[in-house]
């Protein structure tokens, strides 16, 4: 386990050192950015709409019972942008993009394509890892922002349509505006960037250390996704504490 952690940290350091070559890899960055952002957009939209809705559905009646219906926008807004949107988007990207990266790099490792790069004096970190890391660190926070906006709308619809809550759009968004500021949204996006580093580096490291044939690739994908999600949930607490300190 410590060896795995060491390898991941070494890879992170080597990726950081390769940053000056980022501009030369811009074509690959855009390709990966498309995978992280554009291709995940529909799924993110549907998920966020329902997360916002279910949040309003769960909290709305409880608040309404106590005569606090006007706070529903604030509760949904804050929960979404500080916690739910970054975590859910990170899990979505880990499952959709991280698994694909682990499988792709893993298969390149098994079928000697990574070795072929090394023999051509092309650093696999610069060629394979760096563009993916930049793409996910840029793409995931934007996806979080999108998820927050869609989630708010989902919450507004349920708050309006649900007979136990039944507040107007105007009242919902007024409450949201009173309770949520730009810093809260930035808080979520910063978390998204932190999760992006975790997903990217774990999935790339797993891919590069793949051994064996197709079964090895399967194991790599499973480990990459499970480890990513575990670390997202684990480090979420520490990120939250850190960002609260900045508050």
């Amino acid at each position, binding site marked *: 386990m410590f060896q795995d952690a060491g390898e991941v940290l070494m890879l992170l350091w080597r990726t950081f050192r390769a940053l000056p070559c980022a501009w030369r890899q811009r074509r690959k960055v855009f390709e990966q950015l498309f995978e992280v952002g554009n291709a995940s957009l529909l799924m993110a939209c549907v998920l966020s709409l329902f997360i916002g809705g279910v949040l309003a559905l769960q909290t709305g009646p409880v608040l309404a019972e106590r005569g606090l219906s006007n706070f529903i926008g604030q509760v949904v807004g804050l929960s979404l942008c500080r916690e739910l949107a970054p975590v859910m988007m990170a899990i979505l990207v880990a499952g959709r993009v991280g698994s694909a990266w682990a499988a792709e790099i893993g298969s390149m490792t098994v079928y000697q394509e990574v*070795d072929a790069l090394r*023999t*051509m004096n*092309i650093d696999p970190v610069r060629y394979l890892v760096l563009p993916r890391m930049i793409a996910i660190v840029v793409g995931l926070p934007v996806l979080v922002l999108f998820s927050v906006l869609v989630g708010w709308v989902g919450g507004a619809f349920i708050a309006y349509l649900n007979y136990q809550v039944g507040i107007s759009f105007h009242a919902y968004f007024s409450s949201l505006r009173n309770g949520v500021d730009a810093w809260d949204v930035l808080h979520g996006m910063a978390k998204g960037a932190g999760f992006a580093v975790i997903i990217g580096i774990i999935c790339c490291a797993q891919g590069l250390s793949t051994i064996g044939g197709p079964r090895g690739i399967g194991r790599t994908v499973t480990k990459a996704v499970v480890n990513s999600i575990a670390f997202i949930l684990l480090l979420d607490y520490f990120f939250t504490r850190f960002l609260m300190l900045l508050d």
Partner: protein
Amino acid sequence: MDPCPPPDPNQRGIGLSVRGLCKSYDGHPVLEDINFEVRPGELFVIMGPSGSGKTVLLKHLIGLEQPDAGQICVGGVPVGSPEMLDRHRVAMVFQSGALLNSLTVGENVGLYLSEHRLKPPEEIRRIVAEKLALVGLKDVEDKMPSELSGGMRKRAALARALVMDPQLILYDEPTSELDPLIAVTIGEEILRLNRRMGVTSVVVTHERELAFGIAHRMAILFQGRLLALGTPEEVRASPHPEVQRFLQAGFHFDSPSEANQGAPHHEKHP
């Protein structure tokens, strides 16, 4: 004696030396005390049965594996040191071709030039077409590797190695899994490149016909040890029983008439 003598500036190819190379995986020795030298411009063949450690040895020669003990020098520079691939152009043709499946054949062949920004894109396109034509491939630049046959993939991999204008080429089983016609073409290509360009070549194979046909010198590897080293004639004359067993192994079937005598008789029904 200097373990890594400097290369001869008059030679295009570079030499390599292996001293006391040992490697084991999980306590199981795969290479034991390997010592040999390849002279600049030489075509050196490493032969041996499957599982004898040939590919592992080849990977050590280009730094894809780290030895447990011993030293390997390519062109006077220790393998594994950061400057080895900076100072010398060493190419490897993998057994599977190892073309990048996400790139077209043309992008694969020109990858070295485009990634190191050695030529402008138009020049890269011209060089790629030229090297592909050299190995007998035409109009495949825009195809994906998965659209090529095994032989074409190997030839494309050879073209990718040639683009580097190498001083040393390592071939891993270059004719395995190929039909005899393509295998002969590849064998001739290896020989032609060595003669015409003076590139030092190390070929790993278990095909005796190819090995004895192209080698200036050769080595026989068996269970991780070098059993014979020298010119093809010297290796053929080696008294080692395992070497002789490997060199003389062949199909010894009964003749068709003898086989028919042993075959079950079928009664003919009217």
